[in-house]
């Protein structure tokens, strides 16, 4: 058990995913000649770059997509990779960072809504394990749900990590003497964590209030085929509206 650092420790740490392995969430959304391909998976950033083209070709072949997809997929992966790597050298703030993670996703016919707290400081955390246990405990039979859950968690962690890089930068600037506006921004982003600590510190027990139970309970719903079709058509309409 890692000893918890003091609440005021703001020692910056090199940027990385706050999980046991530096796995990056990659999201693909490619449209070529009327065919749309959406996908999301985790990628190991320490794997050699040659894997990108191999993977792209494999995916394109397996799904029998036209050839143009392979290059697009490879490009997209590479851009996201480089984006991740661009954050690499920078620092991010750790400290008391318990953040709420929300799940709100639909995989094939399963609808999942959940909310829970995640410790950003714990670099041994493993979203994959979490999703495996999640699916087992809730008796989800669709095997595609697990990876989707893990991916969603990872994505949110990634976003938060990026934000913490920004706050680290800002706090560095603030230390240089530019107080005022910046300090309020930094306090806002870490506000969530701080509030929670305040929440806990006021109580004699760590148990949640009863009225909050509903919020934090996972909800899994199986949709029927018609509902799925309806949802998808709605999403399409929204997308067309956006693009128009």
């Amino acid at each position, binding site marked *: 058990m890692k000893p918890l650092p003091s609440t005021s420790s703001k020692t910056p740490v090199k940027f990385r995913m706050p999980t046991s392995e530096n796995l990056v969430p990659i999201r693909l959304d490619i449209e070529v000649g009327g065919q749309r391909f959406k996908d999301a998976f985790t990628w190991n950033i320490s794997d050699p770059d040659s894997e990108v083209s191999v993977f792209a070709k494999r995916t394109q072949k397996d799904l029998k997509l036209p050839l143009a997809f392979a290059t697009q997929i490879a490009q997209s992966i590479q851009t996201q990779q480089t984006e991740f790597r661009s954050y690499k050298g920078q620092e991010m703030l750790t400290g008391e960072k318990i953040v709420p993670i929300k799940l709100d996703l639909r995989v094939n016919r399963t609808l999942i809504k959940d909310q829970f707290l995640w410790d950003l400081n714990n670099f041994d955390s493993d979203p994959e394990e979490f999703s495996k246990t999640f699916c087992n405990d809730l008796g989800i*039979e669709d095997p595609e749900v697990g990876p989707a859950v893990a991916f969603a968690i990872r994505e949110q962690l990634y976003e938060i990590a990026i934000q913490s890089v920004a706050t680290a930068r800002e706090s560095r600037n603030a230390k240089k003497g530019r107080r005022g506006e910046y300090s309020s921004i930094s306090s806002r982003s870490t506000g969530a964590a701080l509030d929670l600590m305040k929440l806990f510190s006021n109580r004699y027990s760590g148990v949640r209030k009863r009225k909050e139970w509903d919020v934090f309970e996972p909800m899994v719903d199986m949709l029927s085929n018609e509902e799925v079709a309806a949802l998808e058509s709605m999403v399409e309409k929204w997308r067309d509206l956006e693009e128009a």
Partner: protein
Amino acid sequence: MASLEPPAAVTPPSSKPNLLPLPSPTIITPSAAALAAVAPTTSSSSPATLSVATPLPTPSDAELVHIPSYSRWFSLDGISECEIRCLPEFFDSRSPSRNPRAYKYIRDSIIKQFRRNPSSKITFTEVRKTLAADVISIRRVFDFLDAWGLINYSPAALSKPLKWEEKDSKTSQHAADSPAGPSSDSTPPVRETTKWLCGSCKSVCSIACFASDKCDLTLCARCFVRGNYRVGLSSSDFRRVEISDEMKTDWTEKETMQLLEAVMHYGDDWKKVAQHVGGRSEKDCITHFIKLPMGEKLAGSAEFGSGINKLNQMKDDNSSNSSSSGKRLCLSPLADASNPIMAQAAFLSALAGTAVAEAAAQAAVTAVSKVGHGEANAHFRSLHGVQGLQNASITSNGSNKLKSSEEARSGVNTMPEEKVNVEEELRTVAMVQMKHIQEKIIHFEEIDSQIDKEWKQMEQMRDILFYDQLNLLKHERSIRKTGQQAAEGTRAG
């Protein structure tokens, strides 16, 4: 509580599993197959403790799963040495997410997914969508299982040799149709199974022999070197014919089939190929494979490495191989990569056409031999002058002739030397022309300077003339003056 029965004949993992001819599948016990029917909950619950409480299925429920005999070591219970060897990154604790437990999870889920529907092939993308792990690890495990026939080992996979056979018939047809001379000519000599007997010493030629088309003579290497042929022949008339071990022990159809199967299966791993074929060394396999007429097609499909450069001419990867079945490059037999000049010469001759190339070669040969003879004649004459003896001259003539013929022979060694000579001749001609022009220029310059001189002389003479005229005028005036003075003097006096 029922424990898992191990599948039939789990042999202790040896260093390299013996490779028997492919289609002899073994049958996994039904309990392993039954796992596929059970929901994925069992896989994740306590992988450390390997006893899973599954009820033994009745034989009627169970399905049979086929895996090839060389994957007998596999068991869902644990991880065997073979897997540790092939996928070391999971077991060397270099990265925290790649550990044996993760590997087992990925492997078991892939296999279960496949076994749910064993008659259809499972693709990598289907698998990775359902696994919560990073896609590269999944891909590696998938490839490993695919290579060992633990997944996607179905009758569809076994039909691959048939597809190859179709390709074979197609290419042999194409070879028959193709009008290009060299390629079709190259096939018969390779496939010939005649034993070569030396014409002079009557021994069986083993390594290499020399055949002369001019007078249909075959000599073994030793006789050729010694020069044991008739007077009319020269060494240039002989063509070298390679006889490797392949000729001694011909490749039967069965062996060829085995070779091709093995190459398709193992690609670049010639050791395994040699093992599979049985009785052939790696070198034999490689050489025979190269010599096969559709070798380049399979080279493309088997992801052949860099060793054979000329076969890379039409290659892509596996996917495009089927689409490019129409194309087929014709190799010229002389395109020997070891001698780049020969390769160029062969290429040029292929471009120009055989008749033209032949004529050019003949002309070059005769030209060089003439040069050789010319030199020999000069040599002969000088010798004659020096020695002045008839006998000596005859002998020297004889030796000269021999020398000249040897010179001609050596001079006429290969085509590229002709080319070099021709180039040199051209160079000397150009030099001579340049010298000619230079001399002309010099000549004109001389004339120019001469003209200048004469012009100067002319000017000088003109000056002198002018000066003389001036003097004359002066003189005249002075004389007139004195005359006038004298006339005035006489008048006054």
